[in-house]
């Protein structure tokens, strides 16, 4: 279908963009890979679309002080191919490579994806496992929130009216840690029916740190804290994986019932953890 009529602005500077959206009566667009389909399906009909695509520098990727800083309009392709990200936070590069198809990865952005907060998106699992932070700015504010406090509900985030996602800050992974993102793609849409991001650090044969982020399973991405604790206290992968969806609300749809989804979460958590463990040294 054709979207309903809307006003379109493409500000040339961040200041201009923040001024435009300060009124709140508009929708911010980056790559448009989520917003445009919604508009074409008439599930979204914004009066005014503000396109951040022409704001210079908003897609930069850099590292300083043990943190990788990724601009909101960095594309999935930028992220999967960036030497900085592949070297410093390879889990995120791996997650990016699972998103959509080549065309979507060339257009879609990190900031757009997380601001849209589809419960079946790929990034949230990794961002949670990486304990990333999201920097939000508006015309008169600048704040940083933990990834764990960012994803609130389906299509609902901590972003407030007048704010945009400016950048994502990811603490670097240690070279010796193991990581893995595993996903059950929906056969038609390619979205994550279940996606599990795992990070493991080992010392002397013991797991000293485990971080597990899960997307797709519930209405919002979550950290599997109980499973992490089990691993850190010496439990095996199967035991930890069994606890991965513990206490979490579970989605159900035409493809997978809640029961089956919980099952898939455990199976794929076990697979992700096994691979992460094998990569850790």
């Amino acid at each position, binding site marked *: *279908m*054709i979207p309903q009529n809307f006003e379109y602005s493409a500000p040339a500077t961040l200041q201009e963009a923040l001024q435009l959206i300060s009124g709140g009566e508009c929708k911010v667009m980056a790559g448009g890979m989520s917003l445009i389909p919604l508009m074409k*399906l008439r599930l979204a009909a914004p009066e005014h679309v503000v396109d951040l695509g022409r704001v210079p520098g908003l897609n930069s990727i850099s590292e300083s002080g043990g943190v990788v800083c990724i601009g909101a309009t960095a594309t999935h392709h930028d992220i999967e191919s960036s030497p900085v990200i592949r070297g410093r936070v390879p889990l995120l590069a791996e997650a990016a490579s699972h998103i959509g198809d080549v065309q979507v990865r060339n257009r879609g952005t990190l900031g757009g994806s997380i601001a849209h907060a589809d419960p079946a998106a790929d990034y949230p699992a990794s961002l949670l496992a990486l304990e990333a932070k999201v920097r939000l700015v508006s015309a008169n504010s600048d704040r940083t929130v933990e990834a764990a406090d960012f994803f609130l509900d389906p299509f609902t985030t901590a972003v407030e009216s007048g704010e945009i996602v400016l950048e994502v800050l990811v603490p670097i992974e240690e070279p010796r840690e193991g990581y893995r993102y595993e996903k*059950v793609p929906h*056969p*038609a*849409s390619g979205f994550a029916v279940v996606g599990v991001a795992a990070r493991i650090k080992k010392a002397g044969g013991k797991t000293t740190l485990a971080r597990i982020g899960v997307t797709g399973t519930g209405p919002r991405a979550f950290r599997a804290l109980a499973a992490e604790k089990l691993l850190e206290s010496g439990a095996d992968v*199967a*035991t930890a*994986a*069994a606890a991965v969806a513990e206490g979490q609300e579970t989605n159900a749809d*035409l*493809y*997978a*019932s809640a*029961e*089956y989804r*919980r*099952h*898939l979460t*455990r*199976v794929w958590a*076990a697979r992700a953890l096994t691979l992460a463990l094998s990569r850790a040294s």
Partner: protein
Amino acid sequence: MNTTVVGKNLRKVDGFKLVTGGAAFTDDVLLPGMLYGKILPSPYAHARIKRIDTSKAKALPGVHAVLTYKDVPRVPHTTAGQAWPEPSPYDTYLLDSKVRFVGDRVAAVAAESRALAEQALRLIDVDYEVLPAVLDMEAAMDAGAPVIHDEPDSTKIFDREHNIAAHIRREIGNVDDGFREADFIFEREYRTQRQQHCMLEPHVTICWLDGDGRLMIRTSTQVPYHCRRQVAMILQIPVSRVRVIKPRIGGGFGGKQEMLLEDICSALALATRRPVKIEYTREEEFYMARSRHPQILRMKMGVKRDGTVVASHLQVLATTGAYGSHASTVQGNTGSKVLPLYRAPHLRFECDVVYTNTPVAGAFRGYGCPQGFFAQESLADEIAYKLGMDPVEFHRKNAIRLGDVDKLSAQLGEGKEGLPRVIRSCGLPECVKRGAAAIDWDRKRQSLPARAGFVKHGVGMSCTMQGSGIAGIDWAASFLKMNEDGSFFLQVGASDVGAGADTVLAQIAAETLGVSLGKIIVTSGDTDFTPFDTGAYASSTTIISGGAVKKAAEKVRAQVLGVAAKMLAVPVENLACAKDEVFTTTKPRKSVSMAEVALQALYQEKLQIMDGASHYNTDSPPPFCATFAEVAVDTQTGRVRVVHLATAVDPGVAINPMQAEGQVEGAVTQGLGFALSEELMLNHTGWPMNPNFLDYKIFSAKDMPKLTTILVETEEPLGPYGAKSVSEVPINGVAPAIANAIFHAVGVRIRKLPIRPEDMLRALYEQQPELKPEEALVTQ
């Protein structure tokens, strides 16, 4: 056979236009003043329109017509594009005061833009009396179920009080006696789903009045002639006032063997006296077009200890949705083209086709056979396993063979008695042999189950057949005339829907006339300029339309030789034509070019070399197919991945092997979706839940397994140059081959399609508890 054009991989005659984006398809024209038509779909599965007010919609500037049932003739008809008199019930109306499924027509508008048309639809004020609906086919015949067709003027409905659109019972031999003779009897129930065609090009129609006030219909159809007849009848105008033009078509698969938009688009054009276009969106295509009939099949087979099948009994309950398009004929095929695969003397087929308040089913590649073969070939595999036989051996022992007569076809024709089917060509044994070799059957049957790991592999197979045209009903005509340069215009009513009919027909003409393919210029599917043809369905075009082309070409060749005989001063008997010339077959060799013959005829003899011919067959020779699949089943998630699919098909002689292989590959792609992922789902109020490609999964290039396609050519006496057909048969065996391979891999029988991972896993844990992963991962 010694041929120069037939049997060669020549390029499609319309290929250049297609790949360069020429004005090929219905929607590629923009007529001055063209309006956009849009249909208001019913939001209720079953309701009566108590009041409908269109005044606000009509008042919207740019809206030129709003039609409701009050504005159009009420003529009971079927939308099924079948030969007259159609065997489908006359239960459909251009517009009606009752709606029978979510998506049924309530009203139609024509406006200056699509947006305006959509806006106008929202301004139509409708009061519905919502009626109880029946969505479940198993409840449709119950006493007290809502009667979907309570209108008195519909005809040819088997039992309207019980929502039975059609009922079939046919028997050869005596099945009860047969079961008494059997050493073992097996009986199982199978279920198949609502699959949608998902053709690349949706239904689209443009209608206008020409300078003489005649109604022009440019439309994406498989059946231009049926469409012309039906539109004329529904709108109550003479056939002579209607012209149907079929341009290039972006796929039909049976979905366009249907007069679907042409009537309402014509009504809007007549009302506005302006060109009107209606094009379905993808969403509309899913639930406002047609789909495959869902069926519940109870298959019972009696066998001797040595594996000989003595009796088969198939009982089918199917739903045709809210209207009976193709109801009796699709289901008739489920019996007549499936049961006779085995040589059992006793066969019985019983079927009820019921109305439900669901989207309308219709023709779909395979036409009832994919459902029937899923049941029969799954059960055959189960029997072979129980008897300790290799399924290949079971088929070798029981399958129909050369010289056999299929008597069930004589009882089950197109909605009436048919004609017996004599097997005059049969490559099935060779198909099985070569398919088995391609998949490495003997080794993998032994070695695969022994493999370690949680992903289990298995191989399975199935044998299937189809028809080539409807015996005694399908017919076609063609016409050829010669031009100065030795080229020929070929006019055929046949409808190339993308499968390559124009090319195949041109190859047949070129071969017969002894000219190169480039010398044949094809015009097809235009009711003003091409002779009659029943249309592109029932795997008929190559054998029936091709037969007509060959006959016409033979007549024209005789005229060519007649002129050449005078020119060369030799008797006609001593002449032949090949390579664009006519030459003597006796020494000394003398020749004239086709162009010289044409110039002589046109300017000296004052003779237009031209002729036409009509053709039909009283038999429908079956193409055969053996399908072999290797699958990998993830026993932790239930995901089934097809690793390799080998399809060996006997199409008779392949007129264009490259195109024939393309047909096989396309058919198995749809077969994979039918087996593993495709199902249009409805919620409890009859609303479609997945009418889009984000939720409804069709197999695309990147999902395909390794494919091996094998053509096992035989020579069919009834076909032009020995051809039968190819387009439908390869879809039939994919689902049972996969289901049988799953059994080989993990020992679980899946009897419901599509085989979804969650269902697979549940069945696995139920039937093979030892495959459950360790305790910690068990489902709660």
